[in-house]
């Protein structure tokens, strides 16, 4: 399939992406009969700036398998035909959170798929930032010592991470800093739930993704 990036077409447009009530699917408006290219990009970025270079990369990946496919690091895409969209009553299931989704209308003629740029209209934006709120707790581990009224610091801090199914990638997006180093959080650590750091100073958990919000 060849992809061509074309200018806006009032008769073929997709716009106003939003989350479903359960926040697990993407809904959007679309011209009658138009297909949609759903793009997932790093949080806060603009998918349209990736075009037209992205067209050539789309050609080498099958994006019509009813699931998101990775086009390049951090950029995923899914082709949703007009028929498939109609069948998705609850919307297109989210691939993940802490990212930005963009919907672009497209039409396929034979072996050529024309992707239309969104119209410049503030009332019908093509993109939606989907943040992910997670809870991370860092606390000093203490113990009770005989005859001491107050608990005593053990020299360890506990870091309570969100579980493995919280949608947090274990690729170092989340990390903690302590004593001048930055230690990435791995899948194994997420699976562990709570990990311990031996330190006199409290580790600080940070996120490299502005869409991954800590509370």
């Amino acid at each position, binding site marked *: 399939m060849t992809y061509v990036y074309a200018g806006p077409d009032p008769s073929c447009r997709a716009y106003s992406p939003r989350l479903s009530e359960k926040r697990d699917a993407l809904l959007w408006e679309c011209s009658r009969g138009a297909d949609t290219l759903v793009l997932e990009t790093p949080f806060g970025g603009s998918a349209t700036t990736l075009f037209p270079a992205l067209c050539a990369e789309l050609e080498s990946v099958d994006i019509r398998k009813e699931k998101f496919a990775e086009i390049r690091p951090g950029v995923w895409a899914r082709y949703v035909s007009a028929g498939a969209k109609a069948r998705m009553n609850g919307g297109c299931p989210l691939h993940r959170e802490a990212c930005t989704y963009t919907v672009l209308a497209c039409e396929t003629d034979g072996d050529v798929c024309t992707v239309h740029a969104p119209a410049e209209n503030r009332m019908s934006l093509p993109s939606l930032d989907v943040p992910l709120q997670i809870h991370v707790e860092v606390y000093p*581990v203490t113990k009770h010592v005989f005859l001491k009224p107050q608990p005593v610091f*053990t020299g*360890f801090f506990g*870091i309570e991470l969100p579980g493995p199914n919280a949608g947090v990638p274990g*690729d*170092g997006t989340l990390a*903690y800093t*302590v*004593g*001048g*180093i*930055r*230690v*990435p*959080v*791995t*899948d*194994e*650590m997420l699976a*562990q739930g709570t*990990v*311990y*750091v*031996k*330190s006199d100073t409290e*580790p600080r958990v940070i996120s490299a993704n502005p869409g991954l919000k800590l509370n």
Partner: protein
Amino acid sequence: MDASLTVQSIIEYFEEKLRHQEGYMSGSGSGSEPQYPMMVFHLGPDDGGAMLVEGLTRLWPQFRQEIPFLSAQPGAGGAEYGEFTLREDGKYAVSPITADRVTDLAAGLSSADNHFKSYDRIVAYFVVDTVGLNDPGGFDKYLDVVSRAESAMGIGNSMSMLLVLLDESNKARSELAKQIKNRLAEIAPDATYSICLLSNRRNDHRVAARDIRKLATAVIAVSNNRRVETVQDMFFNHRLFTAGYAREEKPTADICQFLVTALINRLSSLPPAGDGLATAKDLAQRLGISQNGTIVTLDEYARDKFASLLPAPQQLELFPRRDRAEFPAAPASMPASDFDEWTMGAWSAYLAGLVAEARAGLDLNRVEKERIAAGYRAYLRTSFTAGEFIWLSEHPERIDACFAVSREPIRQLGTLEYAVEYLKYLISSNEELRALCRGEVDRACREAVEYMADWNGLVRSMSTLHQVQQGDDFNSFYNGLFNDYYDRHAHVIEGDFKKTSSRDGLRTFFYKAVDGMLHDDAMSRALCASFESELRQRLGQDNVNNRVSHMLDPGQVPAYLQTFFSLGAPFRSFILLEAGSLSSALNIPAGTAVYNTGRGSAVEVLYLYALNPDNIMYGGAM
């Protein structure tokens, strides 16, 4: 390298360095000094003027800032002026100046800051080099420029001398010279300046283009000294004169040629050998490739650039653990795989971050890539001889086999050691950098092939040299000197030579070898000896005197002008040398003045002959 290396170019380098060093060691500025403030105007091609300026500043270095050396040429408005200034490369070049600046310079000659002996006169020399002239009209323009320059000086108490350098190197030039002589014969009786006429065709029929400027320098030197009668003679009593000139100097060029050819001959007997590599088991090691396949220069780069990013051993304690338990051993000494397991993959992820940073750095920095290439190039040159490179160029498969190895470090190494090794592996397994280094081997091989061609060319170029004809005493003396030096330094010289494997390297090697001779105490003492000492070293004092005394007979010394009639006896005779043992040992005839040059590099004699204008007049007028 811009041009192939020849034995001539090495000799020239040696000669230049030796003359420079002689300049420091043969005394300076302690000879006779100019009596009156003076200015020198050069009319003609600037390169000839530069030679004259060099000669005079060598004689009077202490007056370099006090004697204006100017260029004056016909041009817009009658005359254009320039000032000879010393450039950073040690050569003189002309910078344009105005006529007003000429006036200022002339006025500045009487400054109380100057160091001339008397200030009641100002002397102006106009050296007219006719070599660039094509028609007699051009000479008249020069005479006009002389008048304008005298006016520009604006000084009332000046004495002027016109030194005319004739070019009679061939028939056509001789015809032009005849017409210039006729013109001079016409103007001499009424000229406001004295005229010294010098030709490059001597009265012994030989053409001496180079010496004519040395002669002009000598005429200027002796005409401005404290002997008032000489000054009177040269500026007023003999308005038209010429000179006879001879010079004995240290055979510096021959000494350099002898030593350079001796060095090349010695080195020619060291055949380059590369066949030993065929059975070498340490080829990879000599290529700077470790057992894991990392490359020495890239290892250094990895250490310099990224090792500082690794955590300190105590920081490893800050990695996460599953429970509140101590690591089973100090983290830095734990096997990397164990530490990674204890830290739930955090160590691997941390290292991956460094790796990504390293990769990004490699992608970005072209300057560093060039630095890496230069470092590896330098390593290779110390590791193989030219012969070995040539052998390698014929066996690229052996090089490829060494470069093909690339192994990840084993994870049983200690945590930090593994990290260092892993970074090295990462850098060395980068295809682009590996290809860069492999390319450097090819380049070194190519350069070695060129080098061998250059070396053979250099040896061949010795056949273009004229043989040194200084006699057996010369050969014997310098042969002994060279052999003694070489035997003392053979290890270093031959070691450096064997490591030379490129054209540039060959030039550098010879320059270094030459510098080495000049820096060696014994060698340098002999090489930088004055003219007299050098001769005495070889011949003994009596022979030194014999070598020079023949010049004390004016009949044995060529005059730098062919005339119709005999020149008769000189009206002034000079011997120019460094005052010392030679001048006292020589039987200098009465009436020959000794001019102390303060430098022991040469002995010159100068005989001045008065000319009757009729004696230079040819049939036909200009």
